């Protein structure tokens, strides 16, 4: 029993430790500006990682999320700029772009899902392929440079990122909302149970009258929608998209999921763990920013190490059971 508790509490303990390190390293860390910045930033990765929790729990993997985010950003910006000529209301334009974004996300997920289930290609290969495709598409759309959102719309839209409600930035509220919905979906619905079952054993799932292909495809679509939501709150932050947008998001998302205790080989997932995982990653990035001890450029290296260590620990714990 105590071991089980440690498993659940592990990510939370790690979060507290990282937080204390932050406090010790720099006085600026505790400023309300910095803290709300951390929360807002963790929202992007967090939301993407919630989707990844479903995919991984059901035994899949999606490497395409980062370039998918970049591609969707580009589409949104092109669409909004184009609609400027024909529609007067900024609000209507933004709403149309949001709807389009969700649609593209779901469609991209559907494609990943169908390729893995119907064409029976490994998820790793499929999403590696789509990752390359979206990355190249956004670079092409931006002609190798940067796509910028029309200034007038950007002004209105920026409220989505910079606006504050009850002291917290909007993205944090969206993150919270997605987390709660994700939690309910994974732990309290038939779909969630099916994700666990499919990830544990596809053949047992099949003999339990679960439509395995449909469940897996649904997780990829959910992942696509989560990427779209993250993109919707990310676009107003910079008001632009380029070939560099969303680089390494897949690493961060998968890292957040694994740090949170979701099992990489599938069959077991934890939404709150993922949320904590996203917070830990963002905190570490922030601390690296605030200190001179380690270069900020090494952030990716630190995250890479964390993923590897987290999986190693998971395997160890797995074997001892």
């Amino acid at each position, binding site marked *: 029993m105590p071991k089980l508790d440690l498993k659940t509490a592990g990510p939370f303990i790690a979060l507290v430790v990282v937080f204390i390190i932050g406090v010790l390293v720099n006085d600026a860390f505790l400023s309300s500006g910095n803290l709300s910045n951390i929360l807002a930033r963790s929202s992007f990765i967090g939301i993407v990682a919630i989707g990844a929790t479903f995919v991984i729990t059901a035994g899949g993997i999606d490497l395409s999320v980062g370039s998918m985010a970049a591609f969707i950003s580009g589409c949104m910006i092109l669409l909004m700029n184009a609609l400027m000529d024909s529609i007067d209301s900024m609000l209507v334009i933004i709403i149309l772009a949001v709807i389009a974004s969700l649609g593209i996300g779901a469609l991209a997920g559907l494609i990943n899902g169908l390729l893995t289930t119907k064409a029976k290609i490994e998820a790793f290969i499929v999403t590696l392929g789509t990752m390359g495709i979206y990355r190249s598409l956004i670079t092409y759309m931006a002609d190798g440079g940067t796509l910028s959102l029309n200034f007038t719309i950007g002004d209105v839209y920026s409220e989505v990122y910079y606006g504050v409600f009850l002291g917290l930035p909007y993205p944090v509220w969206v993150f919270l909302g997605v987390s709660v919905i994700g939690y309910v979906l994974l732990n309290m619905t*038939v779909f969630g*149970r099916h994700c*666990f079952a499919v990830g*544990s*054993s596809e*053949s047992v799932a099949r003999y339990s009258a679960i439509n395995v292909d449909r469940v897996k495809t649904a997780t990829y679509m959910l992942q696509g929608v989560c990427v779209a939501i993250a993109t919707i709150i990310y676009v107003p932050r910079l008001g632009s998209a380029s070939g560099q947008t969303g680089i390494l998001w897949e690493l961060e998302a998968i890292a957040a999921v694994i740090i949170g205790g979701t099992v990489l080989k599938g069959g077991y997932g934890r939404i709150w763990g993922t949320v904590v995982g996203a917070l830990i990653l963002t905190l570490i990035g922030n601390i690296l920013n605030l200190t001179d001890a380690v270069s900020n450029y090494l952030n990716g290296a630190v995250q890479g190490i964390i993923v590897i260590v987290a999986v190693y620990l998971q395997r160890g714990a797995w074997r001892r059971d």
Partner: protein
Amino acid sequence: MPDGNNKSLTFSVRKLRKSFGPVEVLHGIDLTLRGGEVHAILGENGAGKSTLVKILSGFEQLTGGELHISDESGNSKQIDAWDNAIAEQAGVVLIHQEFNLAEQLTVAENIFLGNEIKGRVFLDKKTMRAKAQEYLDILRSDIDPDATVGQLPVSAKQMVEIAKAQAKNARVLVLDEPTAVLTQQESQVLFELIDRLRQAGVAIVFISHKLDEIKQIADVITVLRDGQLVGSYPAAELSKDDMVRLMVGRELSSLFPEMPKVSETAEVVLRVSNLLLQGNSTASSFELRKGEILGFSGLVGSGRTALMETVLGLRRAAKGNLGSVEIRGERVDFKQLSAARSKGVACLTKDRKGNGLLLEKGLVFNFSLFSLHKISALLIDTKQEEIAFEKAVETFDIRMKDRSIAAGNLSGGNQQKLLLAKILEAEPSIIIVDEPTRGIDIGTKSQIYHFIAQLLASGHSLILISSDITEVIGLSHRVAVMYHGEISGVLVGDEIEEVEIMRYATGLKNKNLHQEILDKSGTSNAKA
């Protein structure tokens, strides 16, 4: 093979205790195994048989008590360190109920797995192959040492396990429910082999729920009840009734209940016409009536499971299949099991580990997985789920010391009960069961048979695939026998008896043949 000079071998346990966490499951067991003796261990599901033999063979550590083993010269001494490697060194080998073979490797490679014979640099494949052939010859088995294990039938796999035990020079051979997956004929082959090992002085431990088998081959019988030792007895002194009484602690009423009659005019709930299975040239047809049990008999690999899984949409029919499936007169074409379930059809798989249960998940999770639709609108009603589970634990007498364990930690028989409960919780009206009582003790078996009788009385219908021929005969209203992927005959009334069933199962008789010759005026029936 041991030289036969170690008749003096003894291997014993004293006051053996075993706990999993805070829960004790073996409470002080005494047992002595002797070379040249077949020692049967008998007990209800969850009594602790598997746990006991896992300790004997070093797969589990004891938490109390002592082990003693005699050396080559017959001096018994206490063992202080014991694990799987040491046990194998000492010649104690366990053959698990679930085999431990590497499916992609050949027979010879498996026999020497972890025990390889090395040349100077590389493995000495030639010697290993020759040796493997030698072991197989001693077992009088015609298995090809170069065959890939994954392609072999279960009985052959078991033979490979035993050959593997010989390569380890087994002095004590422990078999945990070896016959659960074998047909009667295959079991007889195994018994001949056990007999030869016994004569060679090997001590054999044999676990089975089939009392006839125990009667046939055991020299000594040890009975466990709920983790306690009831006693060890010379096999000759115990009748089957004695065994049951010692095991269950009470007399057992009749094994098979009186089955409700089915009228000739009862509605046909399932009609399969001319369904063509993959890899077959003859189509199958049969009917199931309301309130009926239709037994399916046949040798392993005769296509019973394939036929049912094709009906249910778990497998594709052959290309060019023109056959049809009707449920209560309505034509159906299931692509997914969920479609079958919504028409009230469900199936119990015989592959408990591969298709039946998620062994690392909890009991309730497994129990409700097939029937979640019943207890959820938007969200799953976990309270109702809990209540349904409690009820099933009672109905199916699922026994465990601790409800929070994973399904894989239930005893084998209790896993089977959980699987049965899982399928029936969906309340199907047409139930297809494949080896439903595999590994289930005789008391619970009788309980399940009575439960099935109740289901029939309330209008359910059942298809029973079983390699336990007494079960098929005892329960079925009619028996369909399959041979090489086709139904060679449907037997009714007095025809339903063992010899006749075997005639159809081995192709000596075939009701189609006659028909076919008439239909196709003698086109070739000589299929492989």
